[in-house]
């Protein structure tokens, strides 16, 4: 059975390209553009993993993640953002709130490997 990934970004091109890549890698992908849509999906379908941008149309990515951790604490989250900061500092801060932090300039292959590592069975992680 295919693993279900929810991806959240306010840019349609990002959603389409990332969704296409993860689908061709064998995952079931649900793309959404707003935090409210994302919460609906999380509550109704319980995706296996969430990939979210930091900046959203109707919310802040970190707020959404805080909400998600309350409702589905076992669902891993990857924060995928294009905001340029000092990566080391940011990573230290954000890694406390999310399971993985990746810059959008990371390659699709790296994103997929990160997904695979989070979705791997517990014995192999």
């Amino acid at each position, binding site marked *: 059975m295919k693993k279900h990934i929810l991806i959240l970004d306010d840019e349609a091109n990002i959603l389409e390209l990332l969704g296409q*890549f993860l689908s061709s890698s064998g995952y079931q992908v649900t793309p959404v553009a707003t935090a409210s849509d994302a919460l609906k999906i999380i509550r109704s379908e319980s995706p296996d993993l969430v990939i979210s941008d930091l900046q959203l149309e109707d919310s802040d990515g970190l707020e959404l993640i805080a909400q998600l951790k309350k409702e589905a604490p076992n669902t891993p989250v990857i924060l995928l953002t294009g*905001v340029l900061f000092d990566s080391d500092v940011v990573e230290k801060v954000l890694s406390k709130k999310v399971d993985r932090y990746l810059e959008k300039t990371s390659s699709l292959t790296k994103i997929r490997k990160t997904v695979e590592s989070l979705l791997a069975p517990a014995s192999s992680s």
Partner: protein
Amino acid sequence: MKDKTTSRILAFFLLISAILVIIAVQAARNIKQSGDSSDWVNHTHATLLEIEALRTALYVAEASSRSYSWSNNTNDLTTSQKALSDIAEHLNITQALTRYDLTKAKEVSDIESLVSQHISSIRNILSTTQASKMETARRLSDADLGGEVSITIQRKLKKLKDRELAQLTERDIESYLQAQKTRWTVWAGVTLNVLLLAGVAWLIKHDIDIRRQAAAALQVANEQLELRVKERTAELANANQKLSMDNLEQQWTNLTLEHQLRYNQRIVDSVSDLVFVLTKTSNISRMNPAVLHLSGWETTDLINKPLSHIVELVDSTDDGVHSTSGSLKLAMKEGRDLREQEAFVKTKQGHQTPVILSMFPLRDQDKVVGGVVTIQIKSNSSNTTF
């Protein structure tokens, strides 16, 4: 290309047919010859019978005439006369039978002359006896019957008979040889045809075997080709998949970089301070919207112009070193900042707005490639007009 096997088989069958035709022709000829021989044999036997009958009739005529000459018995006379009649009949038949052979015809003709002469002698004896001239008849009988003429006739008849017998024997031998020849011809032809048929059968079997082998080889080749096609298709599918992934990666890279650039641009555009990017020669290469908003200039008015076209340091002079451009170039060259310098902005309408200028060298891997100038409006400025 014509099938060689078909040509060969056709050639074989033509050869078989030719041999059958030869056998048939030979057999027909032999049958005809046998028929002719049979006719000749019958003819010869008839001739022999007539010759023998003639000889017998001569003997009977001689014996009965002699007996009549001595006994004057009418039975002998009758017998003799009948014999003479038989002689004439047999002689005619013999002549008829031998008329087509000139040699034999001549011999029979000679015999006929002698027989005629002998018959005359016998008739003379009979008539003499009938005339009761017994002594004369006996004398004539002793002289003519069994004499030279009679012996010559018998010899000639025997010679003729022997020759016929010899020819009969020769013809028997010829017939036998002909039969043998026919037998050998037929058997040789049949044997040859059987061999040719065996050859044809072998050719057909050989051809079938070759075709089967070719079909099997083709099957194997097809299977190998199919396998290679499958492998190649899988390779191409993998290559295509990889290309698709590479394409996606490239699209993602372009998209994220574009997103990043756009975001950076938005940050710069949102700053209320005036921001200029200068080349190493202190010409303006970029600026943020705040510059245009404050100064009233258009982008085309400022791009590639020296910063002094719009901004002047308060302490600047017209000499190269202490001019605004000279100061900026020197600072960039030395890689040092210029912080919070008093300056003023010249608007398009000609007004001057006092500002605080700071310049920071723009570095790319420790190499100064230009400078970034930020300008803040002095908060107590009363000349902020556009």
